[in-house]
Structures are given as C-alpha cells and as structure tokens.
C-alpha cells in the first residue's frame, strides 16, 4: 500500500511521521505551495506532486490533511479515481457536502475513513470501555472540555476563516461532540453559546448542552481563548452507578522545573501530548491501515463523522438563533 498525503500543515506532517513509523511507504505529497512540501518529501524519501490528480496516479490510498473546505472536492476527486480515502476531521464544512462525500464514496466503491483521533486517545478509549462494561451504570451527565490557544499559523491561517474552517466549534469542539455520541448515544437537541469576536475575546470560546436520545445530558466546552501553550482536556462521565474523571492537569506524569524560563515551545497549532509509547495519531493510522489491508474493524465510520458534523453545525446554528436546535435523524447514521 502506497500512501499519498495532501496537505503539509500540522496534520499532514503528523500523519507522515505516523506512516513512516508504521513502515507504510509514502508515495508523495501535494501542497498548495509545492516548496512547503519539499522538507517532508526529503525526510521521508517521497516525491512532491504538482496536483492531486498526479498524486492519485502514484498512490493506492490518499490521506487528505487539507483545510476543511477542501475536503469535499478532494474526496470526490479521489473517489472517482477509485482510491480509498483517509480524511481529516471535520468530515466537511456543511452537512450537504458530507452527505455527498459519503454517497460518492459508496457509489465509487471506495472506503472513506475520517480522522476522529480522539477515539484513539487511550484515556478516551479506556473511559468508553469502562462505560460499555457497565462500570458507571447508565450514563446520566457527561462533561467534556477541550481548552487550547487560538491557532497561530504564520501564513494562511485558515482556522480563523469561518468560511473555510467553520471556526472553533467545527474544528475543535467536534472532537467532543463525536465522543459524547460515542459514550452516550445519539443526540436529540443542542443548545450552544459562543463568543468569537476577536475585538472582544482573546479567542473563540463556546459552551454547549446536548440532550441524548436515551436521556443523558452532556456539557461541552471548547476554547481557543487560553494562552499558548495550553492544551487541556478534561472529562467526567457520571452514571447511575459511578463516576469517571479525567483531567490532563492531574495526569501529567512529568513536571519539569527549569531555572531559565523555557519560553513558549508550542507549535502554531495546538496538538495534545502525554508521554505514550505510540502516538494516538499512529494508533489511528495503524487501525486505518489494518482496516484497508485486512478488513479489521475500526471504531469510527464515515457515518459517525457525519453525525458529529451535524451536531457541530447545529451548535453553530444555535449560537446564531439563540434557541436550542433539534436534530433530524440521518439515514446514513440510523442505517
């Protein structure tokens, strides 16, 4: 299996490192500015292709790590070329785009795998296993929280362009909307409040309340309003028989105290890091690889990605209307 990577930003380079670690040959990279792909190409002994079409002719599976608004055209092009596809989250910028991508991939007979990487983070996986094993009983109140700094890419900071990224709610909170669904089931209603005006706030910040079909309720906080290098995640799952708590603030195994200030060593885009022998991104791509090669099961489907997209878009609508939004069940998800 030869992989072709589209996009060489934070996710493109993270995925490239993971593929290399897994020993999967990287055929090449495509980037808007080809020179930006050169360092990665040299590092992994790959080529730089001028466009997606030429990359598709050189790879078996395409890994799309581009800004959100480009997912649909690229996935459709790859599907029509008969390639299996890995696509970064969020699946798409709009629900129609997402549905179109799923339909096109189904019609083309190719697989579409979406990088909802939180489903591969061991603390989140372990918590869900405990929930599924009944260790907290029926899930009642879930709290999910993801606090980071505003992405500060030096060039083309598309994260801050709502038309391209959907903003913090679609780019960041979607992780926890997906996880909420994974542990507490389908979501019926969403209410969300948000502050995003850069003249008022140091970064987007939002709070949402979800109601799940089976009665559980979930509180979600997403934030770009923290100073760098913050990357804090926290969750609580309270059920009829118990309570699970996770907080990166209390599970950091290292504390380093330097006499000279280390300065801000965080990258342009917040990426979580707790010492692990295998990065969750590698775990994710390994699962995708084994699924594509051997048909092994994977914990996240394109329909899951569509459902998470629907929740995030409903949250955005709620911030605009000031009212709760009821979700219409998606046939792709209910099937």
């Amino acid at each position, binding site marked *: 299996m030869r992989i072709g990577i589209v996009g060489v930003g934070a996710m493109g380079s993270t995925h490239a490192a993971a593929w290399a670690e897994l020993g999967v040959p990287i055929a090449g990279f495509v980037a808007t500015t080809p020179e930006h792909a050169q360092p990665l190409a040299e590092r992994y002994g790959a080529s730089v292709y001028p466009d997606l079409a030429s990359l598709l002719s050189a790879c078996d599976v395409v890994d799309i790590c581009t800004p959100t608004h480009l997912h649909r055209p690229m996935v459709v092009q790859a599907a029509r070329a008969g390639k299996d596809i890995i696509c970064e989250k969020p699946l798409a910028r709009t629900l129609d785009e997402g549905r179109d991508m799923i339909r096109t991939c189904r019609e083309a007979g190719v697989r579409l795998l979406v990088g909802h990487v939180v489903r591969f983070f061991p603390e989140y996986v372990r918590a869900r296993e405990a929930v599924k094993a009944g260790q907290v009983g*029926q*899930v*009642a*109140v879930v*709290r999910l*929280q993801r*606090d980071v700094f505003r992405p500060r890419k030096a060039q083309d900071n598309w994260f801050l362009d709502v038309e391209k990224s959907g903003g913090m709610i679609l780019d960041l909170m979607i992780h926890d909307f997906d996880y909420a669904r994974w542990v507490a089931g389908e979501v019926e*209603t969403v*209410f969300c*409040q948000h*502050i995003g005006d850069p003249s*008022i*706030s*140091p970064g987007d*910040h939002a*709070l949402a*309340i979800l*109601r799940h079909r089976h*009665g*559980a*309720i*979930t*509180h979600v*906080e997403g*934030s770009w*309003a*923290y*100073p760098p290098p913050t990357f804090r995640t926290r969750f*609580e799952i*309270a*059920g*009829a*028989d*118990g*309570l699970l708590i996770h907080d990166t603030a209390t599970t950091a195994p290292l504390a380093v105290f330097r006499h000279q200030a280390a300065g801000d060593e965080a990258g342009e885009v917040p990426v979580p890091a707790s010492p692990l022998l295998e990065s969750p991104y590698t775990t994710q791509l390994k699962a995708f690889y084994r699924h594509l090669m051997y048909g092994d099961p994977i914990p996240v489907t394109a329909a899951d990605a569509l459902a998470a997209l629907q929740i995030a878009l409903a949250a955005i609508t709620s911030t605009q209307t*000031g*009212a*709760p939004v009821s979700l219409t069940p998606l046939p792709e998800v209910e099937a």
Partner: protein
Amino acid sequence: MKIGILSFAHIHAESYAWHLGRMPGVEFLGIADDDPVRGEDAARRYGTRFFPTYADLLAAGPDAVVVCAENTRHRPLVEMAAQAGAHVLCEKPLATTLADGQAMLEACEKAGVILMTAFPMRFSAPILEVKALLDRGQLGKILAANTTNQGQLPRRYRAWFVDPALAGGGAVFDHTVHLADLLRWFLHSEVVAVYAQTNRIMHGDTVEVETGGLLLLTFADGAFASIDCSWSRPANYPSWGGLTMELIGQKGVVHVDAFRQNLTLYSNRDEHPSWLSWQSDPDRAMLEEFVAAITARRTPRVTGYDGYKAMEVALAAYRSAATGTVVQLPLE
C-alpha cells in the same frame, strides 16, 4: 445580641449552632423546632435552650434569627420573625416560589428588619480571592464561565432534600443558587435568559426529583455561564462534592476549586479515601457579617434580594427543562 435558630431541618443548622455558641457578643438564645425530638436533641448537643414552638422563641425577644426550615417552609417563619422585629438570616434557597420570595422581602422591608440569604460561598476564602482579582481588573471583562456545584445525593443528610413537597425540587434547587449568586456578584450583571436540561437517571429508582442538571445562563452584559448542579458524586466519593468555577476573561482565565484545600486520607478503617478539609470556615464569616450588619444598622453584603434573584434562576431552569425553550428573566 440574642440570636435563635428557627427549625433544625437543614443540615447547615448544625454549623450555625456551633458557631453561635462561640461568637463574642452573641447570646445563643436557643432552638425552636416543630420536630421536638430533633430540636431537643440539637439543643442538648449545643448546650442551648429548646423552644417547643417558633412563637415561644420569638416571644423570648431575639434580636435576630437564623431560619433553617425546609425550603418550602421558609416563608411563614420569616414572616413571623419580621413581625416580631427580629432580623433574619434565611437558609438558601430563599424560597421555592416567586410569591413566597416576594412576600418575604416585603415582610422584612415593612418591619424594618434585615433579610440576609445564607450564601456562605460569598465568604469562602478562595472565592474572595477570585472576587478581588476580578475587581482589580486582572482578567478584564468576564466573557464566559463554566461552573459546577456537584454533590452526592443529599438524602444521607436529610430525607426531605429529595422530597419535592419540602425541597421544592431536586438538584436544581439545591445547587443552582450558590453559583447563580456568585456569578451575579462577580459579573455585576443580571441573568436575562436561562436554558436547562435535567434528568433522573442517577438514583432514578429511589427519588422523584431531578438528579442531573445542566444550565446555560445569559447575562445582561452578554456574558454566558453554565452551571452543573448534578448530584453526580457517588456515595464513595471522597467528600460530599464541591464547587468550581472557570472564568474566561479578556485578559486571561482563572480556575477556582473552592473546596480544594484538603488532605487526602487513605485509611484501613475506611472503605474509600476521604478528603479532610483545612479550609477557612466560611460559615463563621457569614454569621459575623450578619451580626456586623445588624450592629451597624447597614445592609448586609448578601441580601434577601440576592437570594430572590438566585431562586429566580432556578425557577427559570425548571421552566426551561419542562418546555425545552430558553426562558427570559425576570420571571412574571
């Protein structure tokens, strides 16, 4: 100054009785309770006099009383005290209906006595530290807040806490008012809209009231804040629960965990670890403020109106949870 306690229904009466017996300048007049077994027992334990009726205690000429009746029974005791000319410190929530709350405010106003709501968190040292930080402008304007006041099922302390006829509701009434009050105090702004979702999955087979609750409040100044009021702490949690606030400001963020100051005890004698608190006792400071306001004939730092506005948020949350809509304040 002579101070009595009207009813020992609320668990907090234990702490107030302990302090009233030790405060300089305070004569702990006694305890009146409609449950004579409970009242006599408490009077014996705190070395004070038991009055079989509330009228008896009020006839003994208290300067002030602390009302610790069940939530739905505050009003008649507050009205009686006001008529007797006694200043009132009333346990939270101030009341469980707008009509009761308004009647209590009016009765005390008319009688010219102080009505203070027992919001001890206003006197919590970590909370006061945050208040000072905010008032010095260290975080700039507060834009949003994520707050929790979660606890164990309180039935283990008093059975009536889960009886809707006496408590007025469940987790929402029990745990919303503290945070609604702190947020109003921090933001210098009133709540204008409330959205809430509740459920009864935890302890669903044993209680009739809601045990899970999430609220999202909108303030007049545009800020928004969530409150998790759930009774989501299992019986073997290391403490009764806690209160936390995470405030997002224009200049930065502050997190406060008001009950963080504790030791962790792992003992072969206990079934689970427990937290031994070493925090400054906010109840003592709250009672001292009540006494100081009476002495100086001034408005206390926490008023009956503050209690009313916090109760209004809880009532709006019940309406929102019942209708699935955003409820505008003030309530009619």
